[in-house]
C-alpha cells in the first residue's frame, strides 16, 4: 500500500499547475471560454508541447503515462485551473485509437485534434439507441453536443451497432457553439458523409473510452471543487457581516466542514477509480466515482454560491464559473443517476 505520488507524476502535476497558473489565469480563461473558438488554440499547442497528451498514453505506444493515475492528475489540474481546452476528446480518441490499433502519434503531438461523437438527441447517453446509420462507407445522422467538436480535425463517430467510424471534420457539417460553462462543443450533421470504419463492433471500446472520460471528468471536478472551496474559505475568513467575519458563524462553519469532508470523499473515490482502470472492476469503480462526484460537485457548487451570497452570482467573480463547471460536468458521459443505475445493475453480482 502506498498512497504517495511518484516523482514523475508529481513533476507533471507541478509543471502543469504552474504553467496553468501563470499562462492560463482565470480572467484569461473567462475571456476565451465563452467566445468563438471557445478555447485558446495557442494554449492548446503549448499544452501539447508540455507533453500533456503524451501523459495520457502508455509508454509502449509512444506515450509517457497512460495509467488511471496519469489521467487523474492531469485532469485534476485542468479542473483546478478551469481550463476549457478540449482535452477530453483527445483522451477518448487516444483510448479508441489504442483499441483500434491505430497510430497515436498525431494525437500525442497535438497535430491532430480529435473529438468523439457519442450522444444523440433521442438516445442521450445510451449506446444501444443510436440511430446514426452507416451504408457503403458513409454515415447519416446527427450527433449532438460533441465536446470539442468545433475546430476538431477528426471526428470519431459512434454509429448504430455500435460501431466506431472515423470522419474528417471537413467532410461533415459541424455547427460549433460554446457551452454554458465555457469551452467548445458542436452539433455534427452527417449526410452520406464519407467515413472509414475503425472498429466494427465497438461496444466494449466505446464503454472503455467513456469510462476513461468519466474518470477524467471526475478528476477535473475534484480539482475544480478544491479550487472553489479554497475561495470559499478565504471569503469566510475575510468577509464581514454584522461586524464579524462570516466564517465565525457556526452554522456556516459546520456546512463548510461538511463540504471539506465530501471533497475528501471525492478525492478517495477518484483514487480508487484511477487504480482500477486496467482491472475487471473498472466499470464499477468508475461509476462509483462519477456518481459520487456528480452528487458532491453539485453540493459544493450550490453551497459555495449560497455561502458566498450575491457576489458568487456574478460573472465577474470566478466562483460562478467554477460552480457552473461543477454542475455541468454531471451532464457529460452519464450523470449521477445514470451511473447509479449502472451500479444497481451490478449489485447482485456482489
Amino acid at each position, binding site marked *: 500500500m502506498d498512497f504517495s505520488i511518484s516523482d514523475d507524476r508529481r513533476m507533471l502535476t507541478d509543471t502543469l499547475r504552474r504553467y496553468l497558473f501563470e499562462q492560463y489565469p482565470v480572467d484569461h480563461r473567462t475571456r476565451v471560454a465563452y467566445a468563438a473558438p471557445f478555447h485558446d488554440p495557442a494554449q492548446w499547442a503549448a499544452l501539447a508541447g508540455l507533453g500533456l497528451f503524451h501523459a495520457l498514453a502508455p509508454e509502449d505506444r509512444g506515450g509517457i503515462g497512460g495509467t488511471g493515475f496519469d489521467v487523474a492528475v492531469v485532469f485534476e489540474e485542468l479542473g483546478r485551473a478551469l481550463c476549457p481546452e478540449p482535452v477530453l476528446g483527445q483522451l477518448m480518441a487516444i483510448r479508441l485509437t489504442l483499441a483500434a490499433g491505430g497510430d497515436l502519434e498525431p494525437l500525442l503531438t497535438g497535430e491532430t485534434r480529435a473529438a468523439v461523437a457519442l450522444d444523440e438527441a433521442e438516445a*442521450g447517453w445510451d449506446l444501444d439507441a443510436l440511430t446514426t446509420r452507416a451504408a457503403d462507407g458513409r454515415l447519416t445522422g446527427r450527433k449532438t453536443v460533441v465536446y470539442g467538436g468545433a475546430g476538431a480535425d477528426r471526428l470519431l463517430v459512434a454509429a448504430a451497432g455500435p460501431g466506431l467510424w472515423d470522419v474528417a471534420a471537413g467532410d461533415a457539417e459541424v455547427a460549433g457553439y460554446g457551452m*454554458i*460553462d465555457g469551452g467548445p462543443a458542436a452539433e455534427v450533421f452527417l449526410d452520406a458523409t464519407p467515413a472509414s470504419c475503425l472498429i466494427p463492433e465497438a461496444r466494449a471500446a466505446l464503454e472503455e473510452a467513456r469510462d476513461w472520460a468519466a474518470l477524467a471528468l471526475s478528476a477535473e471536478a475534484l480539482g475544480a471543487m478544491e479550487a472553489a472551496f479554497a475561495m470559499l474559505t478565504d471569503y469566510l475568513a475575510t468577509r464581514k457581516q454584522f461586524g464579524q467575519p462570516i466564517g465565525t458563524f457556526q452554522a456556516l462553519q459546520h456546512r463548510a466542514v461538511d463540504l471539506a469532508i465530501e471533497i475528501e470523499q471525492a478525492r478517495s473515490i477518484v483514487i480508487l477509480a484511477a487504480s482500477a482502470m486496467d482491472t475487471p472492476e473498472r466499470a464499477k469503480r468508475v461509476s462509483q466515482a462519477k456518481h459520487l462526484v456528480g452528487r458532491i460537485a453539485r453540493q459544493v457548487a*450550490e453551497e459555495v454560491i449560497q455561502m458566498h*451570497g*450575491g457576489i458568487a*452570482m456574478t460573472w465577474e467573480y470566478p466562483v460562478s464559473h467554477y*460552480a457552473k463547471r461543477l454542475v455541468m460536468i454531471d451532464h457529460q458521459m452519464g450523470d449521477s443517476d445514470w451511473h*447509479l443505475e449502472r451500479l444497481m445493475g451490478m449489485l447482485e453480482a456482489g
Partner: protein
Amino acid sequence: MDLTYSPKERAFQAEVRAFLAEALPPDIAAKVAARRELGKAEMDRWHAILNAKGWLAGPWPKAFGGQGWGPVESHIFEEECCRANAPRIVPFGLKMLAPVLMTYGTPAQQAEYLPRILDGRDWWCQGYSEPGAGSDLASLKTRAVRDGDHYVVNGQKTWTTLGQHANRIFCLVRTRTDGKPQEGISFLLVDLDTPGIEMRPIRLIEGGYEVNEVFFTDVRVPVTNLVGQENEGWTIAKFLLGHERTNIAGVGFSLQALEQVKALACRVTRGGKPLIRNPLFAARLAAVEAELEAMRITNLRMLDRAARGGRLTTEPSMLKIKGTVIRQAINDLARRALGPAAAPFPSEDLEANLQIAPEGHARNAASYFNNRKISIYGGSNEIQRNILAKGLNS
C-alpha cells in the same frame, strides 16, 4: 376546515383565467414559458394591458386606484398569472414603493408618484444593498448630506434589479453617522436623470443582465423627495420587509415549473423509455411534488390567517426557505432532464437554428443557475433561519 375556495373566490378565479386567456399576448407568454428575458417594451405592454383592466394594482386600496384585493384574491391572481405564463409584475413601484408612499408619503408625493406608477411613466428601481453589506442593511454607507433645499448623495448601491429600464430609484441613505447605525437612515426618492448618477450592469452567472450597480457622485436631491421623517428610514425598510409576503413561497412559479418538467419528462427518452418512467427520475419528481403540495397548503393556511386579520410571525420566513428550496429542486430536475442537451450556452441563434433541447427548454440550465439567487436575495435563507431561531422558544 375547508381547503377549497369560496364560490365568490372561484368566480374571481374564473374571471382572471378568462381574462388571461383573452388578453395575454401569446408572444409574451411563449417567452415567459421558455424563461427568455423580456425586454422593457414587452413588460410595458403587459403592464398597460393590466392597467387598462384595472388589475395592475389589484391589491391597492380603491382610493388610490386599486381594487382593494385581499390576500386570497391577490394569491389567486398571481397563481393564475403563473399558470398562464404571464410575466411577473415588476414589483418595485407597484408593490414596494407604493405601499410606502401610501403609509409614509405626503399627499403631494402620493398625488405625484402613484399615478405615474400605474400608467408606466415611472419605472422605479430599488437602492437598498451596498457592496459589503448584503443582508446587513444597518451597515450601509451611502451618505446624504443636507445642503439647503437639497441632499447631496455620495456612495454606491448594488443588486439594483432591472435598473437599466428605470427612470427613478428609491434609496436608503445615511443621513447621520453618530448614534446607533439603524437610527441614521433615511428613505429618499431619486430621479435617475440627475447629474452624477451612473448605472453599470452586472453580468450574472448564467450570462444575463438583470441587476446593476448604481454610483452616486455629488447627486443633488430635493429635500421634498424625502419620504417620512429624516432618520426614519429604518422603520420604513422594516415596514417594507414585512409587507407583501403572502407570495413569498412562489407557489405559482413552482407549480408551473413542475408541470413543465413533467411534460418534458414525458417527451424526452432515457434508455429507450420516456424519462418519466425512469424510476430514479420519477422518484425525484413525485417527491418534490409532495413537498410542493405540502407547501401550497402551508401557504393557503397563511393566507387564510392573513385574510382573517391574523398576524404573520414565523410563516413568511418558513415559506421563504421552503419555497426557494423547492423551486430550486424543480429547476434542478428541469436541467437534469435534458441530459447532454443541457450543456449549450443558450442564445436566440442556437434556439432558432440548432434546436438542441426540446422547444422551450434551451434555458433550463441557465434558469437553474440564475435561480440560485432566490435563496440569497430578500434576506438569505441563513438570515431567515436566524429570524426563526429567535422565535423557537417563545
